[in-house]
């Protein structure tokens, strides 16, 4: 109650401050993104990655799981095609990273993760990845990294209609439609996606015979609308509504004979944002309400489970710039989750509130920039550590840039960790970590060279304490405990080479990561894990993308190689390394009013037999055809 009062007081004070400071705001119009202010600030020192826009559009009919898996260096742990897909950054667990939509955390509070396979890539036009911890900016659970999905506005953009359809050889079909337009006052977009997947691909069974996957049908419908309105030259109101429905059968694994599992997920996510912008100040209030549910049934064991989550998040943030090289931002955030879950034996509520601030400074004329972030969570259930982070970057020489970042991070237990009956443990401590990283970016001066090269190398270390692990108390009862210490460290390297010559463009991105991630502290029961690599974290991973276009023709070769992955915590068993190669070719037909794109993709060109997760079959060579038709009202071409 006392903390709640303090939160209200600070919020009121911040609002009052804004009212005063904006009376003299300058009448300058700046682009407004549907995003938290602190995410729009540069993040010096951090290793960030954005998806090349041309490659993105070649994957726009895929799920976000396939897009990230193919085009980024982040590891996606996928339980088969269409199955649960989650992110794993820098050797951390899947619930130690975050997926954000316009700055709102999509991780469900009961699981601490979100399923990327149920997020259509088509909805988004802005995808950014930040490696490393950023709890000081984004809050709980951002220890390994985060994925930011954004919707940009369409102010003063012409009416554009896009219709896209695709078919995959294992009877997966999808259709997507998007309309967007904007005037100086209004911005509007609406997108729909639908898919009907049979996923009846052939796979090689453990007996080495070919079988067709059964009980793997999936259908999905999605809708995302955004509407922005400029109240005046300084203020903008933005609303977004995202509805998603997925109904999928969960197929048997290779070590099961049959499955009667089915999962229906429903989500309605809405957000409202008010932003006031001047030349030197910005003020923002944003709120979001998510209503999500899952109904899981398993006919073989007569299991019927349902969960419903209601998540309300609201935040206020203020940013001010001083002398063109310093800016500060501060804000407050509150998140409330109401859960109605069969195994909680009653409704549960979780409240989280936090105060945060950032200071960004650009050291002129040297060109170095530094940012300090601080965050303190106010929580009745836990003592959450004060989380600072400091990052800096700048040129060492003309071509060489140095990046440094240190941060403290945390993850509060999930609601399942706390409330699951039997086994939930209300006395858990939050996980915490210190992350350090240093990197260099080498970019030779382009001048009139044909090839533009960027080489990046990052070394990192994450020391995690109080890692939560579910331990068995009996054969039937498992309970979470703060048992593990984990040390993740490693190297990330990438080389990007770009050639642009008249209407020919070539982009090569090659990346390699080395990720030792080992259990450290141990008790009598876990001494077998001491110094062992975490399961499903490959020590070595590489991927490469080569995009080429010449006139109206384009192509993409995408290859990924994953080293050996252990499947037992004692490292007694491992899955072998595997390589997957995909080839995409296509042609565009451009007229003054429209753009038609035909695309053909061969997935798993080498017909590799592999398991990303043990005993979950993956498709061999398969083919995808995509047709996308776009009409512009006022094409600029």
């Amino acid at each position, binding site marked *: 109650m006392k903390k709640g009062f303090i939160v209200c007081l600070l919020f009121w004070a911040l609002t009052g401050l804004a009212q005063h400071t904006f009376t003299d705001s300058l009448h300058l119009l700046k682009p407004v993104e549907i995003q938290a202010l602190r995410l729009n600030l540069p993040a010096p020192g951090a290793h960030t990655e954005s998806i090349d826009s041309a490659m993105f559009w070649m994957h726009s009919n895929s799920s976000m799981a396939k897009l990230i898996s193919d085009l980024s260096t982040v590891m996606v742990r996928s*339980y088969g095609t269409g199955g649960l897909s989650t992110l794993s950054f820098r050797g951390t667990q899947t619930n130690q990273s975050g997926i954000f939509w316009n700055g709102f955390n999509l991780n469900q509070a009961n699981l601490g993760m979100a399923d990327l396979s149920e997020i259509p890539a088509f909805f988004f036009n802005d995808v950014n990845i930040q490696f490393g911890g950023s709890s000081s900016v984004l809050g709980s659970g951002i220890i390994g990294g985060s994925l930011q999905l954004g919707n940009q506005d369409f102010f003063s953009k012409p009416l554009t209609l896009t219709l896209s359809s695709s078919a995959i050889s294992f009877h997966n079909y999808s259709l997507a439609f998007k309309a967007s337009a904007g005037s100086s006052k209004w911005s509007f977009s609406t997108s729909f996606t639908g898919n009907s997947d049979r996923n009846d691909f052939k796979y090689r069974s*453990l*007996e080495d015979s070919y079988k067709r996957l059964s009980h793997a049908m999936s259908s999905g419908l999605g809708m995302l609308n955004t509407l922005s309105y400029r109240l005046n030259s300084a203020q903008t109101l933005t609303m977004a509504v995202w509805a998603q429905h997925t109904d999928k059968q969960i197929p048997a*694994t*290779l*070590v*099961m*004979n*049959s499955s009667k599992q089915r999962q229906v997920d429903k989500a309605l996510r809405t957000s409202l944002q008010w932003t006031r912008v001047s030349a030197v100040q910005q003020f923002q209030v944003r709120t979001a309400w998510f209503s999500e549910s899952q109904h899981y049934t398993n006919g*073989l*064991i*007569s*299991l019927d489970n349902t969960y419903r989550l209601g998540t309300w998040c609201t935040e206020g943030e203020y940013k001010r710039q001083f002398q063109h090289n310093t800016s500060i931002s501060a804000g407050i955030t509150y998140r409330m989750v109401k859960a109605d879950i069969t195994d909680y034996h009653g409704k549960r509520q979780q409240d989280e509130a936090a105060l945060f601030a950032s200071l960004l400074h650009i050291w002129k004329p040297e060109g170095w920039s530094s940012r300090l972030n601080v965050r303190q969570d106010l929580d009745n259930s836990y003592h959450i550590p004060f989380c600072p982070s400091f990052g800096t970057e700048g040129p060492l020489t003309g071509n060489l840039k140095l990046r440094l970042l240190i941060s403290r991070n945390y993850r509060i237990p999930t609601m399942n960790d706390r409330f699951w009956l*039997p*086994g939930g443990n209300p006395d858990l401590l939050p996980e915490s970590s210190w992350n350090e990283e240093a990197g260099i970016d080498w970019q030779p001066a382009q001048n009139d060279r*044909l090839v533009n090269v960027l080489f990046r190398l990052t070394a990192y270390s994450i020391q995690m304490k109080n890692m939560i692990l579910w*331990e*068995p*108390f*009996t*054969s*039937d*009862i*498992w*309970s979470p405990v703060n048992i593990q210490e984990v040390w993740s460290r490693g190297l990330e390297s990438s080389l990007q080479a770009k*050639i642009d*010559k008249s209407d*020919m463009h*070539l982009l*090569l991105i090659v990346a390699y990561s080395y990720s030792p991630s080992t259990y450290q502290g141990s008790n009598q*029961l*876990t001494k*077998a*894990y001491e110094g062992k690599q975490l399961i499903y974290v490959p020590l070595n991973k590489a991927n*490469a993308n*080569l995009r*080429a276009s010449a006139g109206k023709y384009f192509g993409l*070769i995408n*290859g990924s*190689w994953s080293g050996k992955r252990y*499947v*037992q*915590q*004692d490292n*007694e068993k491992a899955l*072998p*390394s595997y*390589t*997957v*190669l995909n080839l995409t070719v296509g042609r565009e037909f451009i007229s003054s009013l429209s753009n038609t794109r035909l695309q053909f993709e061969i997935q798993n060109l*080498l017909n590799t037999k592999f398991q990303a*997760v*043990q*005993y*979950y079959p993956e498709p061999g060579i398969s083919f995808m055809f995509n047709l996308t038709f776009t009409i512009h009202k006022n094409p600029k071409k």
Partner: protein
Amino acid sequence: MTMKVSTLFSILVVLMMVVFSCKKEDSTSGNTDYSKGVMISNEGPYLSGSGTVTWFNPDTKEVKQDIFETVNGKPLGNILQSMDLHNGKVYMVVNNAAKIEVADASTFKSTATITGFSLPRYFLGISDTKAYVTDWANVVDIVNLEGNTVTGTIPTQTGPDLMLKSGKFVFVLNDGGFSVDSTITVINSDNDQVVKTLNVYNRPTGIVEDAAGKVWVMCSGKGYNDFPADGDTKGYLIRLDPATQTIDLTMEIGDEHNHAEKLVINSEKNMLYFLFNRGVYRLNTAFAGAEPERVLSHDRLNALTYDGANNIIYTSDRMDFQQAGWVLRYQASGGALIDSIPAGIVPGCIVVTH
């Protein structure tokens, strides 16, 4: 320059295909008579893993892991619930894969895969040509061992589990499966008909026959050790007269929050052993009603088998269900630890042959 770009493109494509198409293979083989020694069934990782079988030679101390996959080149399947020997063959009940893998006991070469189950639990050989398999579809499946097919079902109560054959009668413990039951289904194995359903106490989990022909049943009670909850019930050890199929003796074991499990008997069939209170306890059948005596102490015990020829207690430490567990051998007389045998994940069933 256009030529140069396309040449560079071609070189890169070829390079990527070469780099990304390397493969490695390896193989292993062995030559052992697996019918002599100790077979241990390991359930395997719960969600998506495969069960395994560990083999141990008590004379040479030789241990071989995962012998089914080593011999047959394929994993057993998800959750190896139990294992039994019958007529020179090993019957491995793979619960979540809804099948029984059959292998030659000497070579461990796969001879058949029996399907047609829902959630099979335990195998009991009835004759050379017939076996019963308890199935959490609340039936006992009748299996023809010549054709390795399920030929019929016998209805039971909820969660049929362990079985015991006494004369022509088969006693099926209905422990409730995912809920709680308190009954025993008695089947006449001559005609596969249910003779009677006995009402006993909550969660019957162990059954043996003593030297006098009496049948002892461990009823564990409702609830879990270390997780007390409202509605938990006490456990009871009961004795049945198989001729009349009535309870002729009842004794309390533990309390509402401390539950005994499993039940085995020595070679003379006069000493009962069971898991209780983080250890193994024993009770002489002649002194029913006396306080059970602690034989040994160890946490996380899972399996329990009595080696009658050597008077050795075999039990297992299932560790944390995620790493390989251990089989522990103790002297039955004094409870001294003989040795520990590394096994697979969740060692659940131990079969000793000589």
